[in-house]
């Protein structure tokens, strides 16, 4: 398995690890049975995600994708975060091995899950904005 230097950097020195105690939104995706869980915390001020932290149980790519995803949305607008795609995560990491692409999907879902929680807390129905909560593709059969 060959990881890019960028993946290795984000795995070995993950950015924004931790929790936000008074978070405005918390998202959690994946499950332990499949070997990866991502938990993402966001702090929102107006339209801006002022802080973002994560905790991940998973492989090198799972840690790296969550780390870079926090960097990609922190200090940016909510609209920007809504537009975050797994493809952008992969590109930012200078590529992922094919069998690790699902980690980037998980990172995108973690961000959307945190945003969904944020909207819910604001009394706004997240579904018209985010669509139905994304299913964790093939891992889903294990969920439970």
């Amino acid at each position, binding site marked *: 398995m060959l990881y890019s230097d960028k993946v*290795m950097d984000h*795995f*070995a020195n*993950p950015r924004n*690890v*931790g929790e936000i105690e008074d978070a405005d939104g918390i998202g*959690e995706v994946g499950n*332990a*049975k*499949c*070997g*990866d*869980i*991502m*938990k993402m915390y966001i702090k929102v001020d107006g339209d801006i995600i002022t802080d973002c932290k994560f*905790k*991940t*149980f*998973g*492989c*090198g*790519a*799972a*840690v790296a994708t969550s780390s870079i995803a926090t960097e990609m949305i922190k200090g940016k607008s909510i609209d920007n975060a809504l537009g975050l795609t797994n493809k952008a995560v992969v590109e930012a990491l200078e590529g992922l091995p094919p*069998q690790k692409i699902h980690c980037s999907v998980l990172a995108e879902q973690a961000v959307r899950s945190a945003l969904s929680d944020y909207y819910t807390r604001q009394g706004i129905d997240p579904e018209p904005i985010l669509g139905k909560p994304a299913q964790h593709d*093939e*891992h889903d059969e*294990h969920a439970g």
Partner: protein
Amino acid sequence: MEKRYIYADNAATTAVSENVLQSMLPYFTSQYGNPSSIYKLGRDAQKSVEEAREKAAAALGCSPSEIFFTSCGTESDNWAIRATAERLAAKGKTHIITTAFEHHAVLHTCAYLEKHGFTVTYLPVGEDGVIKPSQVADAITDKTALVTIMYANNEIGTIQPIAEIGAICREKGVLFHTDAVQAVGHVPINVAEQNIDMLSVSGHKIHAQKGTGLLYVRKGIPLPNLIFGGGQERGKRPGTENVPAIVGLGTAITDACADIPEKGERLTKIRNKIIDGILNIEGTRLNGSREKRLPGNINISFLGVEGEALLLLLDSKGICASSGSACTSGSLDPSHVLLSLGLPHEVAHGSLRLSLGEDITDEDADYIIAAVKDVVTRLRNMSPLWEDIVSGKEHTKKLLPFVSKITLV
């Protein structure tokens, strides 16, 4: 602690030893003859191949004519199982007995045979990773062609009761093959005394080069060819002999089997020290029997941690190891070996295998223990699963019986 480099993945492969390399070198250049040639250069090459055969036979307790050189352990397994099955199918024997935790070389050959009309019994392994001889006895029917059970497991190092299984098979008139790739050079083997009919060996696990192996086939067993060609290996496994590799394998198997008790005693002591040191970490478990275990094998699961991440961080500390997590197996499921022990996926994902080399030192052991503690702590600190476990979340409670006591916060 000063950084060290420790290769602890000897069950994956080993370095070619200096002694093996030196024995091989002349056969690349000055002694390059084809063993089938009539002139002296060829005859000398043939003599060297036969000497290697004698060495392998001496190491395994059989006669040289029962040794066939192959290209690897996988080839040996395929040949023994498939050729035997297909020969005996003609006599109405279409049943094979194996275990749930064999190497894929065996499992996938069995799966192939299942697609071609054979019935395969996969004996369950049980929590300690050791098959009971009675399981084999109970599974044998009048249709059973072959029992194939590994000598020692490649992931958890558990040693199977081979002599007892051999005796049962011999008594019932069923052929018995064992994949001994992980066992040779680590435990004393005598194919005659242990009633083994066929046995697979891989060279690169015992300091010979990759791409070399052998199959022992007891005299009188008519094993059909897997491939066809010239008269090499008595026409059974044709193709011009890989003379340097065969010579190297002869040296390697002699060296590996020369000091098994002494080597085993020393390794076992260091292995136990590492096991005890790592098991001091809460929420861990040793996978497989501690006693019936290869001297150099350690396989431990850490709850709340994923195996590939563990390996990458250990690598950054100079330690080479492996894991049975899904991410390292290349599939969505973790290792079939760990699952066969009855472990939940969550526990299997967090496994670490260390397979020690003969050169391991006490200082290496201290370094490994410290490094593992450090890495596990680091990963648990960022693990939402670990957070759920220590805070006693309901969905994690089913995992607790599988590991050592965890202090809830």
